[in-house]
């Protein structure tokens, strides 16, 4: 009896030991092997047909979102780092004069609320006295001239920049103000809620406050309020689905990604250019250019099954910082075989230089209007896909 008991106890001890040993052994011997990955389901391509366009021309209104990395990062660092809510940083137009990290949406905008969008010059002058580094803001915005297959032209804006003063000047330089007043621009896409893409919204509103407005559903309550406070008289289209077709051959693609300084989500644009292939255009591309390309590969149907071009901020080294994971991107981008790479803004000069060193087809710029390097497309430059 005692012996049976002992055997049973030993058996249980063996089972308990074996379960752990077997589980850990399997984890170690199988998990990171070719066999384990062979059994993973291969993603099925959906080939969503969203039509085609004849061409897309991008006019770079402004890619210089700020003019001093040191000031920008210094302000963020002083406020507590990359996680701090952007509306508290005490940057224009939400500055209240109380200093680093002591700003707020309400206290900042209160000083200029009655002036936007009709008197932006005075509004910015007031904010200039209250804000940290008021000369640093610039902004990102570009005009998209899309030619449909029937030859009709359609104009869209991607983003509205940051500094009222800089953006108004940039709009006038490229004739955007007149196009907006004449209602020749059919929509404004705000790629994400960040200061340099969104806070210049009153500049667009100044000229057309009923323009169809497209935003990501991750906007925070301050962002939604700012749309109203900017004088917008329409109802923004808040995108909830991953894909929204704007016109044949043009779609907005939505990505749910957390972004620095308490921003959530980004939308980018995809075009199928007839006989050429897919063109991807982004504001900042916080989701990652290859993530966007992978989404397009899996979900969309495009001519020649070919990645033709990309344009925009590719968000790799926006502050000229670096991380080995960016090298993963530089190394891998070649495998996607883009024919034309039009990058700028948060792509970073260092990244552009590394692209060029690897022989990628980077379209160079003219380094005008305060764009600092010809390595990529600067302010006033254009690219046609």
């Amino acid at each position, binding site marked *: 009896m005692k012996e049976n008991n002992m055997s049973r106890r030993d058996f*249980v001890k063996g089972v*308990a030991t074996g*379960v752990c040993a077997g589980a850990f052994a*399997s984890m170690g011997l199988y998990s990171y092997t070719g066999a384990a990955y062979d059994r993973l389901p291969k993603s099925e391509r959906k080939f969503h047909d969203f039509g085609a366009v004849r061409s897309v021309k991008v006019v770079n209104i402004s890619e210089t979102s700020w003019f001093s990395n040191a000031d920008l990062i210094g302000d963020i*660092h002083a406020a507590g780092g990359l996680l701090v809510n952007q509306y508290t940083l005490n940057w224009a137009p939400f500055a209240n004069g109380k200093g680093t990290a002591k700003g707020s949406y309400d206290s900042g905008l209160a000083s200029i609320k009655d002036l936007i969008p009709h008197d932006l010059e005075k509004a910015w002058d007031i904010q200039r006295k209250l804000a940290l580094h008021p000369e640093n803001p610039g902004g990102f915005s570009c005009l998209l001239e899309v030619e449909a297959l029937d030859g009709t032209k359609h104009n869209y804006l991607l983003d509205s920049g940051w500094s009222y003063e800089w953006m108004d000047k940039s709009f006038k330089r490229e004739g955007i103000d007149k196009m907006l007043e004449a209602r020749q621009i059919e929509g404004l896409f705000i790629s994400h809620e960040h200061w340099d893409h969104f806070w210049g919204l009153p500049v667009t509103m100044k000229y057309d406050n009923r323009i169809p407005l497209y935003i990501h559903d991750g906007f925070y309550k301050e962002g939604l309020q700012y749309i109203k406070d900017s004088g917008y008289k329409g109802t923004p289209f808040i995108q909830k689905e991953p894909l929204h077709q704007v016109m044949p051959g043009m779609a907005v693609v939505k990505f749910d990604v957390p972004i620095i300084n308490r921003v959530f989500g980004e939308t980018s644009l995809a075009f199928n250019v007839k006989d050429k292939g897919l063109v991807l255009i982004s504001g900042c591309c916080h989701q990652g250019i290859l993530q966007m390309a992978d989404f397009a590969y899996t979900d969309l149907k495009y001519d020649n099954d070919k990645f033709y071009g990309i344009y925009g901020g590719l968000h790799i080294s926006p502050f000229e910082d670096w991380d080995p994971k960016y090298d993963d991107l530089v190394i891998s981008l070649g495998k996607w075989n883009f024919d034309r790479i039009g990058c700028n803004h948060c792509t970073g000069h260092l990244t552009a230089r590394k692209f060029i060193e690897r022989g990628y087809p980077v379209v160079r710029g003219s380094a005008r209007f305060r764009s600092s390097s010809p390595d990529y497309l600067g302010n006033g430059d254009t690219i046609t896909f």
Partner: protein
Amino acid sequence: MRQTAEGVPGRPPSLAPTQVPFSAGEFLMDKDSTGILYLESRRLVKRWSGPWPALVNTLVMAVFFYITWWIFQDPRGVFRLYTPYVGYMVCRWMLILFIWLAYIFDFWPFKRSWLERTHPVVKGTVLTLVSVAAMFVLIKGFFIELLGNYGIAYFNPSRLEEMGITEFYALEYATEAIMMFAAIASWLSPSWVVACEGAPWNKLKQPAKGLTIMVVTFFLSMVVYFVTMHSHMAILFYPWQQYTAITPPYWETFANTVSGNFHIAWIMCCTVVVWQFETIWERYPFNLIKTDWLRRTASFFGIILIALALCFFLYYAQDLVWGETVRGTRRLAAPDWRWLHVGEMAIFWLVPTLFLNFYCGNWPNNFSRPVRVCIRTFLTAALAVLVYVVYYKTSHLFLGTQKGFSHPQQFPMIPMIWLINIFLINVWFMDGWPGWKAVPRTAEELQEVEDEKVASDVRWSPALAKGLAVGIACGVGLYAVVVGVLPWIGQTVQIIK
């Protein structure tokens, strides 16, 4: 591991020699030189019966955690160290200093009599402040000033800034490098004590013993740092520093990334497995080996092998849930982030592991050693999943972190290690106050602890062999079930909305 009726939060390390030279309450002045660690010489007794000590301590630590988090780490708080690398470096080095002070130096230069007589709050405050001061000297004096000025420039943020790097990133790069060193040391230092039992210097007196083990593990950490992380740092700068480091790093093909996060993954798993081995596993099964050198060697390398198994599984699990990685992408689909997340997931397992050991008397204790080890393993794994889900659902609401799994500034390792540091201050420096108090162990109890070094309660027999075979089959089956279920979880469960 022997538990007492009162409950013992925390297994003391087994560094004592076989002879027990004193009985409880005697030789107060001589105890410093007995070779028995302070943590081993005490028994922690509950002040109140039932679950109250655990509940009170949990509440006290939660409050202390949140206050200190707000003061030091929170991006909305006072010092705002969570940049994230500055805060990450601080909490990793605090962990190391606590381990050195309690495990390696046995609280030297503090007298045993002072440790036994001083109120836990005073003791906790003094020992924590001393550790923080030592940490400051080490970071500022050794890494930034000495290494950063006379060895490798990237340890010194001022030098990086002088070479044109933005102040913020200069500080982040330098603190990242210093932090990486701590990550390696937080595996090797306790591993030398726990797995190698401090050999061959376990019979030296303090501070010779502490200094020797510290220097040896520091040296080993440096070697591991150079073969794992130096290349990562070298490709941070343009152009790649090919004359001073291996570029591209040798792990690129295997890990599908040039990022050193690959090494972070397995090293973090080593750190976690060391403590599991020491606490909930009661050093089983390697303590069945009677030959000292073989047991120590098997323990040291066994921990690494188990950690590698855990590392590969946690990586594969992510691929099963989120789909295969795409190299060059950012965030969730990027291989470098998935490797980092392996380390993060491992840390989520360490929190319930230590809590169970420290505050729940290493429950359960009324089964045979293999059974209780098995139960604790799966129980803490389940609790780790719970902590993981709760963290990602709520942390952005009260810690000032960013919503989402993969934000570059979302480092769950920081709050988790901050919490673990508070556990250690409470149990190691404050004798579990307020729920517990320390009483000296009797000579018999000390002998029992010593006897535990080599387990004798599991012996080879045909029944054990049969059980082992059945168990292994069950373990493999369990693994297959988990691997089968994970893709379904990925498609149906949404933690962050």
